């Protein structure tokens, strides 16, 4: 009995589900794995980064051509934030304003939010397989 409880605590949830949820919304994977504090802090910090970036006129239009690798990687980084990225695009925050003084800040904030979400996703995976607490 005690062994099964330890095993349950060591692997608190399905790793694939945790990773999908972690990509969909920052911190959701940790909330699914019952790491509530981490999940809520990830949600608050990454969403704040992203919303500030959008407010500072980031460009969210996807660039998927390989002729400009940096723009391609930038788009992938932004998409890594999951639903907030697609919601913001649906709401019309796609183009940004290139001439705005804050445009590059916005790009940086949105890209870093997505890249951090990849690290958060990997952390959720580690928690799900019992490698981390």
């Amino acid at each position, binding site marked *: 009995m005690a062994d099964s409880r330890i095993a349950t605590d060591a692997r608190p949830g399905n790793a694939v589900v945790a990773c999908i949820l972690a990509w969909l919304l920052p911190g959701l994977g940790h909330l699914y794995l019952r790491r509530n504090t981490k999940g809520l802090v990830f949600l608050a*910090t990454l969403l704040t980064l992203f919303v500030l970036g959008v*407010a*500072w006129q980031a460009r969210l239009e996807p660039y998927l051509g390989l002729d400009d690798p940096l723009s391609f990687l930038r788009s992938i980084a932004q998409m890594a934030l999951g639903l907030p990225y697609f919601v913001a695009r649906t709401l019309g925050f796609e183009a940004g304003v290139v001439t705005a*003084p*804050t445009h590059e800040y916005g790009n940086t904030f949105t890209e*870093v939010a997505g890249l*951090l979400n990849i690290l958060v996703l990997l952390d959720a995976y580690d928690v799900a397989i019992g490698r981390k607490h």
Partner: protein
Amino acid sequence: MIASHLLALLIFSALVSVVFALLQREGRRERIRFGLMAFGAFVLSALVVGWLMYPFPS
């Protein structure tokens, strides 16, 4: 909307440091220590690089 470059730097550093601290350390005391060090490293390195670039025209 944005007050200054320094404010953007401080906001960015604070948010990223919090995430790094949660990812890299276990335990409240270790996380606070790591987060403060990461925040300080972000701000200090940005200021140093900024001053190093000062003599060069844009």
